[in-house]
C-alpha cells in the first residue's frame, strides 16, 4: 500500500501557482485515469473510494475517507477483502470488479447497478436501480423515435413534413418513413437500410446523453443539470449561514458550477451533431468516433457527483445541523477535475478547492466521522510495511 502525501505543501492557505512553486499542482490528479472511477461500495469505511490502474499496472483502490486530511490511502484492490469487513453488497461488487482489466465510469456503474437490482444492498438501492433502468430505457426508446423523426423531417423531403412523431409507431407511418429515407439514401449513394441502421446505432451510442427534448434526456444530461440545481440550492441555503459554513458552501457551489461548465461544453459538442443529420449519416464512422470521444469524456467529468447530489436531495428539511453536516461532506468529497481537463487559468481555482478539502477531511476525522478504528489502522499499517 502506498500513501499519497498530498497536503504537505501549500496546506493552510490558497497557494499561488507560479514559476517558483510548481509543486502546488501535485495535490490535483494528473489525469482522469489516475483519479480513478467512483465505486459505490456500501461499507462505511469505503465511502468515496475509487478504483484505478496504478503505474505498475496493478488495480488499486483509493480511499480518501480514511486519510484524515493527509492524503489518500491506496491499496491493491485484491487486498480489500482482507483489510475490510465488507458488506454482502460489496462482496458481490468486488467479485465483479476484480475480473475487470480496465475501468470506466460507465462500466463500473453498469456493474454496480447489476448488483443493486438484486436487492442485496436493500430495497431502496434496488428500487433506485430498477427505476433508473426503466427511466433510461424509456428515454432511450423515445430518443430513438425522436431521432428517426428528426432525420425524416430534415432529410425525407416534402412528402413527410405532415407526419407527427407518434405516426412512427404505426405500421403505415413506418412504411412512409422508410420510403422517404430510402429516397435520400439513393440520392446520396448510401445503401437503403444503412440509414435506419445508423440511426439505431446513433441512438444507442448517444443514449447516456440523450436529446435536449423532454423525456429524451439521458443520465449524463440529467446529471449536468443536477449540478446546476445543486449549486443554486446550496447558494440559497448558505445565505443565512455564518462565514465558516458559507466558505465551505462556496467551495461546493464553485466546484459544482465549474464542473457543470466543463460538462456543458461537451454536451454542446455532442448536440451539434443533431443539427447535422445529413453529415452524420453520410460519414457515420467519423461522427461516431467524435461523439464517442466526447461522451466518454463526459462520463469522466461527471463521475462521482451523482451520489453527492443524491445526498443533498436526501437532506432533512428542518434539521439545520444535519444539513450542515451534508454540506461539509459534499465539500470534503466533491470530485476535483484532473490537470489534463483543465486550462492553466483554472489551476489555482481547483488547487484552492482541493487544499481546503484536505483540511476539512482532517476536521471530519477529529469529529469521529472518519470511520477508522484502531484495528483498521493496524491492518492498514501491516499492509503498508509488507508492501514497502
Amino acid at each position, binding site marked *: 500500500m502506498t500513501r499519497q502525501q498530498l497536503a504537505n505543501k501549500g496546506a493552510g492557505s490558497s497557494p499561488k501557482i507560479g514559476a517558483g512553486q510548481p509543486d502546488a499542482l501535485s495535490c490535483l490528479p494528473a489525469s482522469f485515469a489516475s483519479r480513478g472511477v467512483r465505486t459505490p461500495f456500501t461499507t462505511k469505511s469505503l465511502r468515496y473510494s475509487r478504483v484505478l490502474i496504478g503505474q505498475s499496472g496493478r488495480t488499486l483502490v483509493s480511499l480518501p475517507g480514511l486519510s484524515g486530511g493527509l492524503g489518500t490511502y491506496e491499496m491493491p484492490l485484491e487486498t480489500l477483502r482482507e483489510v475490510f*469487513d*465488507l*458488506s*454482502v453488497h460489496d*462482496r*458481490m461488487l468486488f467479485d465483479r470488479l476484480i475480473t475487470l482489466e480496465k475501468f470506466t465510469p460507465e462500466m463500473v456503474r453498469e456493474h454496480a447497478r447489476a448488483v443493486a437490482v*438484486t*436487492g*442485496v*444492498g*436493500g*430495497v*431502496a438501492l*434496488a*428500487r433506485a436501480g430498477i427505476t433508473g433502468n426503466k427511466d433510461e430505457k424509456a428515454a432511450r426508446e423515445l430518443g430513438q423515435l425522436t431521432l428517426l423523426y428528426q432525420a425524416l423531417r430534415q432529410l425525407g423531403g416534402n412528402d413527410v413534413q405532415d407526419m407527427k412523431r407518434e405516426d412512427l409507431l404505426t405500421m403505415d407511418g413506418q412504411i412512409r418513413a422508410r420510403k422517404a429515407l430510402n429516397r435520400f439514401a439513393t440520392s446520396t449513394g448510401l445503401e437503403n437500410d444503412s440509414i435506419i441502421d445508423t440511426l439505431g446505432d446513433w441512438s444507442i451510442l448517444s443514449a447516456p446523453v440523450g436529446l435536449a427534448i423532454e423525456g429524451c434526456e439521458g443520465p449524463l444530461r440529467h446529471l449536468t443539470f443536477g449540478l446546476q440545481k445543486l449549486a443554486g440550492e446550496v447558494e*440559497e*441555503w448558505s*445565505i*443565512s*449561514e*455564518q462565514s*465558516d*459554513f458559507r466558505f465551505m458552501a462556496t467551495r461546493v457551489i464553485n466546484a459544482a458550477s465549474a464542473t457543470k461548465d466543463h460538462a456543458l461544453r461537451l454536451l454542446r459538442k455532442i448536440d451539434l451533431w443533431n443539427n447535422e443529420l445529413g453529415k452524420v449519416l453520410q460519414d457515420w464512422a467519423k461522427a461516431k468516433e467524435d461523439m464517442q470521444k466526447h461522451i466518454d469524456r463526459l462520463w469522466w467529468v461527471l463521475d462521482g457527483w451523482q451520489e453527492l447530489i443524491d445526498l443533498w436531495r436526501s437532506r432533512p*428539511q428542518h434539521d439545520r*445541523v444535519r444539513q450542515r453536516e451534508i454540506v461539509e461532506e459534499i465539500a470534503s468529497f466533491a470530485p476535483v477535475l484532473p490537470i489534463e481537463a483543465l486550462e492553466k487559468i483554472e489551476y489555482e481555482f481547483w488547487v484552492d478547492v482541493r487544499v481546503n478539502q484536505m483540511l476539512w477531511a482532517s476536521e471530519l476525522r477529529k469529529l469521529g466521522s472518519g470511520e477508522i478504528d484502531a484495528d483498521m489502522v493496524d491492518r492498514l499499517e501491516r499492509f503498508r510495511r509488507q508492501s514497502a
Partner: protein
Amino acid sequence: MKVENAANMGVSQLGDLFESLSSSEIARFTRAIESDRADPKLPLPHEQILQILRPRLASLKPERYPTPMRQFCDPFEDLLTSAPPVEKSIRISRSSLMPIWKVVEATGGPDMTKAIADIEKAAAKRDQDMLEQAERRMWKLASVCIAQEIENSLNGVKTERALATRLGSRSHLPAFEQIGKILNVGEEITAMRKRFPSAPIRSLGTADISWLRDRFVEISEEKPGYEPVYLLAVLARLLRPSELFKLIRVLSSKADDRTISSTNLATTGDLIIDLLAETVIEIEQGVGAGKGEHHILSLARWYASEFTRITREFNIRKDGRWGEKLLETRRRVSKAMANTMFGASPDRIIDALPQIETKQGPGSGRQGVRPIFAQPFDEEKVLAAEQSAEAIAETARISHVLAAQSSATKAVVELKKKLNQIGRAGVDGMGRLDADELDNAQRNMMAIVRLLEIIDGPEEADLLRRRGMNALRALEGRKAS
C-alpha cells in the same frame, strides 16, 4: 416587484409570486413589508403577507427587520418553542410572547415608551449603535417591570389572579417570570450570542470554556443569583446540553454530584438532566403513539450519547443529586425499548417475509407444498422491515447504555434464528421453482440476506447468499438446457 402592488393580489397570486422570487428578492421584500408594518404608509395586509412568506423565511433565515418586540425576544430566542406552554419546561412558548409583550409595553411607563420609540427610529435609520443602546435600556426596564409585577402578585390570590387576567391566562405566568430574569442578563447573553454566532454550538473548546467561565464569574460578582439564568441561555444554544458539563467541571471544585448540591451550579445541572428527561418523555410518547422505530431510535441514540457524555464529564454517583434522576430516566427508556423495539418490532420484520407453511392438510405431502420463495415479494413491507431491523440493530449496539441488554440480546437471537430458518427453507425449496419465478425468488432471498446482515453482520448472510446464488444458477442452467 413593487411592494405597493401586493395590496391588490389574492393569497394564491401572492404565493405564486413569492415562489418565483429569488432568495435575495425575498429578503428585500420581507424587510420592506416589515418596515412598512412598523410605520404603515401603504394599505397592505402585512400579517397576511408575512404569513404566506413564513415557510420560505424559515429556510432562508434572512436578516429580519428589528421591530421592538423582536428585539425584546432576542435574548431568549434560543429558548422559544412552538409547543403550548408547559408548567415545568425551560422552553418558552411562542404563544406566550404577545400577551407578555403587551403587559410589558403597557406597564413599562414613559421610559419604556421612549426605548421602544428609539428602537423604531434606529431600525428605520439602520443605526446599529442606537439600536443596541435602546434595546439594552428596554431589557433593563422590562426586567425591573416584570420583577415588580411578580412581587406584587405574591401579595395575595387577588393580585396574582389580576396579573394572570392581564396576561390572558395563568399558563403564561412561569414564562413571564423567566423572561424577566433572562432580560436582567440580556446584555451578557447578547455578547455570548455574538461570541457563538452559529447556532447550535457544536462543541465548546478550551478557549470557549475559559471565556464562558470569565463571564460566569463576572455575573456572579455583579448580578449574583443570575448565573443559572445565564447558563440556561448558553444551554439553549448548545447542540448537546451535556456539553455544558465541561463548564460545570471547570467552575466546580467539587469532584462528584453528591457534594455539589449546595452550589448554584446544581440548578444548571438539574436543568440539563431535565432536558434529558424531556427526551425520555418524547420516547415514551413516541412509543404510545406508535411512531416508527427510526424516530424512537434517533431519540434513544440522542439519549444514550448524552447519558454517556454526562457521566464521562462528571463523576455521577448513584446516590448523588443527579445520579438518582439520571438512573430514573434510564429505567424509563429501558422499559420503553423492551416494549417496542425489542418487543413488537421483530414480529413485524418476520411478517414481511415469505411464511413457512405450518398448516398441512390431510394427505398433503412435502411435494404438495409450494416453495416458499414462490410467495410474492412485497417491496413496501420489506423496506419497512429493513428500517425496523436497522433500528433494532443499532439500538442493540447501544443497549448497554440504555440498560436494555437482556431484551436486546433476546430480540436479536430470536430474529436471527427465524431469518435463518426462512432462508434455509427458501433455498432448499428453490429446486422446485418454475422458471418464471426466478426473479421473485431472488428478491425474496436477498431480502433475507440483507436483514440477516443488518442484524448479525455480513458473514452468515453472505453464506446464505452464496448458497442461494448457486441454487439460482443451477435453476437457470436447467432452464437453458
